[in-house]
């Protein structure tokens, strides 16, 4: 256990220390204007100095991200199940799911305000729109990859469609669903920040304010908070994955 800690934590920690130190000294030595690129120490100072702005903003963004992600999981799974029911349904609707993934959120963000009004709803909608597709795509791939032999076995025993879905397809697809969630978690943060640019609130507005007030160090501090949020969600999905799969799936077994 202790050795694993060293193996897992030491390499990224060493990378962090080295790159931070290199950036600190490199930026100082090159004499780069603080308006263009602040030193890591300046960013850390800004983070501490403005924590009363950053932390409530982080909490607000986190709420929107979690809400958007929850919607994505619910809607994404339902859509994937619906698409997996028949080849014809899949062929009819899957191309449109891809189309909606390709629509750039930045371009439609201003419309969200017109549709949902200023505030949280627009932000949640933006987080949802960008994060739902990876859930659909990965869940569908999982649902469609069920071992045909097992499908035959369920049919042989006269299992109902609901039972087949609940006891075979969904457990089979779970690793794929979780992979989709890992991707969705990071995207939801991006979506929420873009949503906040137009809808207001959270870290998105802190970034805009800091840009306008030429506090580049605070921009970086806010961006790091957003990144930490994405990382936290990613870790939460990983923990869920470990917990859900450890007893039976090779992906998480014996680790």
């Amino acid at each position: 256990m202790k050795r694993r800690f060293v193996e897992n934590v030491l390499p990224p920690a060493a990378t962090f220390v080295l790159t931070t130190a290199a950036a600190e000294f490199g930026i100082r030595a090159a004499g780069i204007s603080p308006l263009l690129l602040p030193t890591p120490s300046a960013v850390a100072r800004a983070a501490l100095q403005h924590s009363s702005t950053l932390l409530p903003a982080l909490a607000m963004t986190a709420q929107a991200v979690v809400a958007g992600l929850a919607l994505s999981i619910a809607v994404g799974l339902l859509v994937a199940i619906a698409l997996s029911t028949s080849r014809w349904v899949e062929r009819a609707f899957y191309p449109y799911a891809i189309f909606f993934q390709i629509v750039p959120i930045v371009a439609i963000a201003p419309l969200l305000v017109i549709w949902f009004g200023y505030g949280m709803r627009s932000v949640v909608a933006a987080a949802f729109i960008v994060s739902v597709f990876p859930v659909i795509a990965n869940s569908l791939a999982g649902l469609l990859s069920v071992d045909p032999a097992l499908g035959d076995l369920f049919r042989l025993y006269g299992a109902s469609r609901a039972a087949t879905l609940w006891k075979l397809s969904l457990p089979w697809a779970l690793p794929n669903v979780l992979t989709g969630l890992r991707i969705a978690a990071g995207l939801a943060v991006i979506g929420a920040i873009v949503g906040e640019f137009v809808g207001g609130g959270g870290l998105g507005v802190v970034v805009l304010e800091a840009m306008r007030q030429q506090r580049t160090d605070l921009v970086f501090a806010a961006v790091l908070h957003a990144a930490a949020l994405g990382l936290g969600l990613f870790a939460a999905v990983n923990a869920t994955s470990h917990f859900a799969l450890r007893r039976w799936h090779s992906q998480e077994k014996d680790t």
Partner: protein
Amino acid sequence: MKRFDASKIARTLGIIMLFAAVACGGEDAATRAAAGKVAIALNWKPEPEFGGLYEAQRTDAFTKRGFDLEITGGPGAPVVQMVDAGKVEFGIAAADEVLLARDRGTDIVAVFATYQTNPQGIMVHASRGLQSLPDVFAAGGTLAVEPGVAYLKFFEKHFDLAKMKIVPYGYSIAPFLSDKDMAQQVFVTAEPIAARRQGADPQVFLIAESGFNPYAAVVITTGARARGESKRVADFVAALREGWRGYLDDPSQANARMGALNKEMDGETFRLGAEAQKPLIEDAFARQRGIGAMSLERWTQLGEQLRELGLIDHPAQPEQCFADAGATGGAPAQSR
């Protein structure tokens, strides 16, 4: 309407692109200067606020002084950073941005202030019968402004904004047109004219009325250039001043030129905008000291206000903020 929707994101991306530009080097301002070339970065699309510049480019104001003018930048361009990094010699910013940039450790100075009175205001529907900015804030409703603008901080300090729902301005007047209780930031030369032309009955309260009046559409450069190449800077300012004199007298040809570059604003809006901004540019002070001239008192006051609002961390040194080459004691404005 006036402002294109993705511009906030563009501003963010602009910074990133600037990093790339700085990293890649390329032709810098010094080599251009030697060739008589001079670049100015704008912070918006060609609109009446830059009328004098385009008039000076159209006429021989720049060429007879040996300048080959390149107009660059646009919505989202990180103008202050571009000037600071030496990518362009000159840029357009607001007076408060100059003080902020200096406070953050750069040596940006103002050399010409287009607007003596800040042309930004808060637009409301006239049907609400509001009489002043405090009225607007007391009435409540939604207020759309760009997050982080200095005047919003000033409002927060001096007025009670508890009843207002403050949202980011999305550079479109569509929400204003559809919500009778909506208030939004405007440039008097643009949005109110567009709103009226779309059937609304807008009323504008200038931000300057509240006691916060930074010079706007200010031409900036670096302190090193203003001191070291003062003749060149003075020539540039003289050309620009000549352009503004011409534009104030007859904006039609420069408007046509800008209209060709900015198709989103129609000719009538250009005409009305140019008319609306006249008193903000050429007031008694500018008549006496020259268009674009600045005063130490104004810079001192702005420095104190920004310090009071916590927007700058150190006391401003107003005398170092500006170098109005050729204006102080310069030729008085020609009579019409």
